[in-house]
């Protein structure tokens, strides 16, 4: 044992062969440096992700109910019921989709450090969302005037439930957006710290992405 240890020491003092890696004290080379763990997102981000999953399930339930009545009916829309305004709602869809573009522009701006542009983009998004809700409200007023109410038929009930819950979500997102806008104006967000804006963008994206599905199902199918 002692002989082996001496032999190892002698071997260590010998000049190293070209290309051979030298180490302290012989044995295995030290482990490569380990990078510290880096969180992929904040707790708020993860919670929003879970919340959006629950929201998706909620709307899936409503869509499931719509499928039962829509596929089960031979004639749709039922006779003597007003037709839904496809054209104006199509324009409204474009407006809402464009609001997601401006919302993501706000997120890109804060990531690039252009904090002044963030509040501008948020304001544009809020205006587009408001226009969407106004057009929806006008459309509803027209439909009620023509006799389509929640209790008039299954058709009316499904329409107001599905589209109404979506409009409620847009209104909620708009209130959230207003709060985020105030925070952005007061310089709360920076390139490094903008979780509040990020989760608001997530929610807005969900609300916008849901709308073309509902539009296709309720208005076009």
């Amino acid at each position: 044992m002692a002989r082996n240890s001496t032999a190892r020491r002698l071997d260590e003092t010998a000049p190293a062969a070209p290309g051979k890696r030298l180490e302290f004290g012989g044995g295995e080379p030290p482990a490569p440096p380990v990078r510290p763990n880096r969180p992929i997102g904040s707790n708020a981000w993860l919670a929003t992700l879970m919340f959006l999953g629950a929201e998706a399930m909620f709307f899936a339930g409503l869509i499931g109910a719509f499928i039962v009545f829509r596929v089960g009916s031979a004639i749709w829309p039922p006779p003597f019921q007003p037709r839904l305004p496809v054209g104006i709602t199509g324009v409204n869809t474009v407006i809402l989709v464009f609001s997601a573009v401006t919302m993501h522009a706000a997120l890109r701006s804060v990531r690039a450090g252009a904090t002044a542009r963030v509040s501008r983009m948020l304001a544009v998004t809020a205006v587009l969302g408001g226009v969407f809700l106004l057009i929806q409200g006008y459309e509803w007023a027209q439909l009620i005037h023509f006799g389509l109410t929640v209790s008039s038929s299954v058709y009316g009930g499904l329409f107001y439930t599905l589209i109404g819950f979506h409009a409620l979500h847009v209104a909620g997102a708009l209130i959230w957006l207003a709060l985020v806008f105030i925070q952005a104006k007061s310089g709360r967000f920076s390139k490094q710290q903008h979780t509040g804006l990020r989760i608001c963008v997530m929610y807005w994206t969900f609300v916008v992405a849901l709308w073309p599905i509902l539009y296709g199902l309720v208005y076009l199918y």
Partner: protein
Amino acid sequence: MVLCGALMAPATAHACAVCLTGAGNDSVADAFNLSVLFLMATPYTVVGAIVGWLVYANRRSAAKAKSEDGGEPLASLASLQKENGR
């Protein structure tokens, strides 16, 4: 066991209204079936999307960390001749 029970006592299985109507060529039954399939697929889609996003965010975060560190891991001092004194 449930399947065996259903095969041995089909009349009992008909106690489920949806199963009974699903046997015919009724449009309402088709609508129920489609809705059930949709609702069955939704949780997998939602959970899959969340997991997919987490994986994507993890990879993006790792790539960002690597680029901020300069791409190469730090050399250990023992591997440098100047530092190890030999």
